[in-house]
């Protein structure tokens, strides 16, 4: 969120469009349902949560085109490494 948004308190519709498109294209490109991407995200998060401390709703996943193939991009911003017990 940038400075201006704090004052206007309105989500820019262009940002909403971009986010929606990214989700739609992920499904289109891989022909996967929203459910299975969600499931993958949950499972990946579960594995990583063993090692990292997350803010759960900051996780972002998308598919990007790279020439003829696709790249799965996943952002897992974490607070810190978990101390191994």
């Amino acid at each position, binding site marked *: 969120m940038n400075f201006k948004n704090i004052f206007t308190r309105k989500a*820019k*519709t*262009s*940002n909403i*469009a*971009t986010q*929606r*498109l*990214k989700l*739609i*294209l992920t499904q*289109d*490109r891989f022909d996967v349902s929203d459910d299975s991407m969600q499931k993958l995200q949950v499972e990946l998060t579960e594995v990583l949560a063993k090692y990292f401390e997350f803010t759960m709703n900051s996780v972002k996943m998308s598919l*990007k*085109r*790279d*020439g*003829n193939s696709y790249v799965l991009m996943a952002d897992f911003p974490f607070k810190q490494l978990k101390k191994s017990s």
Partner: protein
Amino acid sequence: MGKVIVITSGKGGVGKTTSTANLGTALAMISKKVVIIDADVGLRNLDVVMGLESRVVYTSMDVIEKRCELEKALVKDRRVEDLFLLAASQRNRKDDIKPEQMLDICERLKEIYDFVLVDSPAGIEQGFHNAAAGAEEAIIITTPDVSAIRDADRIIGLLQNQDIEPINLILNRLSPTLVKKGNMISKNDVLDILNIDLLGIVPEDPGVIASTNRGVPLVHNDGSPGADAYMRIARRMIGQRVPIPEMRDDNFFSNILKWFSRNK
């Protein structure tokens, strides 16, 4: 040996025909030999946008069914030298033409012309496949909205499967004012999503409607923002290094400035 480029979008109404007419005209204006092909069999419109509808005698269907020689089917433009149109048949259906037949026409034309631009119909069916059959390169037209970008992405996937390369993007009808307000997807976001190279940006230009009304492509209307954009794109297509200008926001102050400079 010339280049065959398909101009396509997936979604209808984003400016394929307008772009084909303007890029064809612009390329001919900078001394290239150009043929534009209307591949929208049954729903032809390139002739109307070019203002050549009264001159169309033969179509690609007549060439395919050997009722007429290819050279004879080409309609010469009224305004620019070395610009020709191959019209689509209005009475046939898209699957009356086979990809091999389209490929043959394109192969023969590129022997003689520098650029063969194929105006693709909307959709991903036979008509699109025919339009792409003879092409080695593609130009994707999209507007900055969710449905056009989604369809563009689908088309890019199909073209990549056919080893058409490069695939370049024209972002059409961009409104800098709306982008600035945050109500239109920006150029950078479109490029980030589609991940192909940008050939150019055409700003929203009311002059397009007037030029279609008259049947005179916008690039004849020197100085309009759309015309300038298409001329720059044409120059990039012939390999000149023409930078893509950042779109200026038409805000209150710039309008006042414009008003003053106009009245000087």
